[in-house]
């Protein structure tokens, strides 16, 4: 009962923050509210007992993304220009997508259902075997680093690739601009 109340309160605050974000034109406030949104979803994840995911969300969503958004703001403007287009079509698309997602969840097993496909597959095997195989109490770490070690190698490679991509996009631009500067000097 208490858990339901906590969840409802958190979801209410989450939706309120999201609506406030869409209405605000002051981008500094929007970035701060996006941080609040992340912290609220981190709290929701804690109430789902997914503590690992929760503090990743808190550190990445509320910490690093906010800093990155702020550094992006220093490169652009701090007030959003009012849109001249009608919000009707976006609203329609969002409503349709939301309805489709809610319709999709109707077929999903209920939360914590022991007979859901996710619990019956390899997960049961991992849970049963990991104490004898590894002597490590945290099954999440065992699955991530050992049973599914190859996947996690791929994940590390994805993180690396994302970093390389950002570096190529941002520092490549700087080099081009510098070359443009020297070109101008040569021509003038």
């Amino acid at each position, binding site marked *: 009962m208490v858990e339901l109340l906590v969840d409802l309160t958190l979801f209410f605050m989450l939706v309120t923050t999201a609506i406030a974000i869409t209405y605000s034109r002051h981008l500094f406030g929007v970035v701060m509210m996006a941080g609040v949104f992340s912290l609220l979803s981190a709290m929701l994840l804690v109430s789902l007992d997914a503590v690992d995911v929760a503090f990743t969300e808190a550190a990445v969503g509320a*910490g690093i993304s906010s800093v990155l958004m702020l550094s992006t703001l220093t490169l652009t403007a*701090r007030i959003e220009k009012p849109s001249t287009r009608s919000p009707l079509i976006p609203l329609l698309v969002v409503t349709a997508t939301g309805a489709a997602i809610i319709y999709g969840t109707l077929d999903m097993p209920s939360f914590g259902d022991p007979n859901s496909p996710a619990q019956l597959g390899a997960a049961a095997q991992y849970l049963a075997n990991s104490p004898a195989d590894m002597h490590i109490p945290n099954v999440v770490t065992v699955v991530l680093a050992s049973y599914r*070690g190859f996947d996690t190698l791929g994940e590390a490679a994805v993180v690396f690739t994302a970093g390389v991509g950002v570096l190529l996009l941002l520092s490549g631009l700087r080099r081009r601009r510098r070359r443009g500067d020297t070109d101008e000097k040569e021509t003038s």
Partner: protein
Amino acid sequence: MRHHLILRVVTKALIGPIILFALYVQFHGDFSPGGGFQAGVIMAVAFILYGVIFGLNAAQSVFPTWLVHKLMALGVLIYAYTGVATLFLGYDFLDYGAFDPHHPAHGQHWGILAVEFGVLVTVTGVMMAIYYAFAERRPRISDKDW
């Protein structure tokens, strides 16, 4: 941020505990929630906080850009070479039992520590690199415009 005395003092007090917490999340990951990904992000947050408060140049003299770029690749290499090491010991790729054939569970401990360390290094490197890439660009609005 030179004039924000409170922020500077609080930041100096916080950075140590943040790094300590990152190391705790990293090396206690076998027993409590957390692991390389989370620890890497928390570690990067400590340095990014330093950069935000004391300026980009201060952060880059602690954690230079060239080092960050090397770390990004180094982490993935640590992970992949752990797998290569198990191959050379005659086991499957990333089968950590290879590190202690008489007691495979101990080998698993060592292997998981090694690959989680690789993940920590990559994630810290990438987060710092992205932050540097954004912050290095010249800002167009001054401090007062906020």
